[in-house]
């Protein structure tokens, strides 16, 4: 029995091809995932991300608890509504999940975690609370749905669909959120485009989706979600990193605060084990598709593609790959595709920004 989001019937009514995504029935596309990808880069598209899990952390010890729980430093969050992208690490430095944490009040932080890892993340947080912060309130919120509206015209179309929303949300900066009880609007996303992620009570989700559709926002499925995030150089938990991966070998060193004196779970392990590998971008400059788990061969040794797909914006195949340190942007390495070795160029990612190529070759 698959889990259903509050928008399940709405997706079916719109002609979605539904698939099993980690135990959830989700829309893969509504006709053409490539068209949906272009719509987000050029205009506005919306995603049902209600399978992800909101967790509220409340109480006087909230900040102190998150200071030790998360690899990134919540002390950077002082402006109300400001958000931070962080990894949740195990004591051995392996990544349990990646997540976004929003600072709302000193006694209220909101976290959004991945669907597939939500149960384990919550169990881990409760375990850590028992040891460190008894009395802290940790509340998973399966009663909430989430719709991400992304694209250059996304915010304008949200304001069109929700009369009155512009006045309060227009001043939101990037990576900042605003509670509008019982709703919550965040200027965050997973596509590299501007836009809002709207968290709201589950029963309200279908009406919002239809209002956004009436304002010209196109429904976008998981297929395009993956090609968009890959172009934007954003990691996917379970592919680019997992419990056996250090964030330092997953291109996430920038999210791990090792410089301040703050202790956090996993810090000692990361300091004791400097990275031996790095995550790089790859471009296939000929026909074909780079895919996860394909082996790569470089002058510095072998590696593996962690995420690969087709980039509709660049019209060629792109990938992230874990390779030895010493592999440099601009170098050519070989990828094994269906038994043949094809040359691929190493680049600095992200691959696309503001709808244009932006990868670095040196």
């Amino acid at each position: 029995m698959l889990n259903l989001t509050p928008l399940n019937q709405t997706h079916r009514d719109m002609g979605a091809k539904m698939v099993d995504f980690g135990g959830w029935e989700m829309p893969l596309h509504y006709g053409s995932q490539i068209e949906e990808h272009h719509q987000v880069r050029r205009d506005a598209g919306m995603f049902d991300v209600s399978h992800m899990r909101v967790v509220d952390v409340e109480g006087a010890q909230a900040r102190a608890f998150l200071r030790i729980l998360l690899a990134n430093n919540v002390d950077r969050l002082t402006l109300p509504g400001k958000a931070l992208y962080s990894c949740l690490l195990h004591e051995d430095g392996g990544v349990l999940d990646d997540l976004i944490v929003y600072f709302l009040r000193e006694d209220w932080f909101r976290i959004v975690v991945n669907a597939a890892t939500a149960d384990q993340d919550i169990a881990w947080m409760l375990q850590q609370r028992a040891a460190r912060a008894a009395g802290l309130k940790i509340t998973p919120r399966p009663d909430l749905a989430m719709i991400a509206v992304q694209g250059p015209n996304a915010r304008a179309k949200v304001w069109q669909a929700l009369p009155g929303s512009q006045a309060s949300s227009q001043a939101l900066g990037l990576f900042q959120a605003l509670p509008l009880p019982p709703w919550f609007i965040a200027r965050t996303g997973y596509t590299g485009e501007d836009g809002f992620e709207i968290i709201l009570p589950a029963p309200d989700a279908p009406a919002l989706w239809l209002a956004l559709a009436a304002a010209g926002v196109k429904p976008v499925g998981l297929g395009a979600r993956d090609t968009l995030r890959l172009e934007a150089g954003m990691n996917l938990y379970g592919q680019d990193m997992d419990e056996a991966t250090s964030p330092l070998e997953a291109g996430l060193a920038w999210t791990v605060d090792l410089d301040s004196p703050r202790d956090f779970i996993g810090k000692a392990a990361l300091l004791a084990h400097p990275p031996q590998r790095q995550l790089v971008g790859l471009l296939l400059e000929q026909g074909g598709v780079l895919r996860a788990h394909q082996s790569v061969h470089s002058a510095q040794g072998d590696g593996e593609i962690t995420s690969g797909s087709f980039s509709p914006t660049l019209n060629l195949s792109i990938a992230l790959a874990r390779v030895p340190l010493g592999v440099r942007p601009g170098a050519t390495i070989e990828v094994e595709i269906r038994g043949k070795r094809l040359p691929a160029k190493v680049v600095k990612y992200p691959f696309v920004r503001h709808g244009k190529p932006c990868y670095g070759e040196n």
Partner: protein
Amino acid sequence: MTIPADLKYTASHEWVRREDDGSVTVGITDFAQQLLGDLVYVEPPEAGRKLAAAEECAVVESVKSASDVYAPLAGEVTAANEELSGAPQLINQDAYGAWIFRLAPDNPADFDTLLDAAAYQAVVDAEAH
């Protein structure tokens, strides 16, 4: 999802049309393109290549996965559809118009052993369950 009555088919989802000169034109069916999703790359066989029946001879790749295309009959490849290299999605838009390759069969009578539309419909029905 369409299955034109005037074509023949294979159980591996190729369609086959006999031309006036005895050659056959081959592509993949509407059912196949729907399963694959948006196509981003097609690698047809090279002209002159000799194929055995059911031999892997072409690749169609969607964002989701790569799929092999199989020779419906033994014969020699006479042409590949050049249009597909710049526009693989033509197959998604018009599976029966966007042919992949042409073949001169070793034995023209083999064409009659292929599945007709009703038999292919049965293949599709079986796969949908």
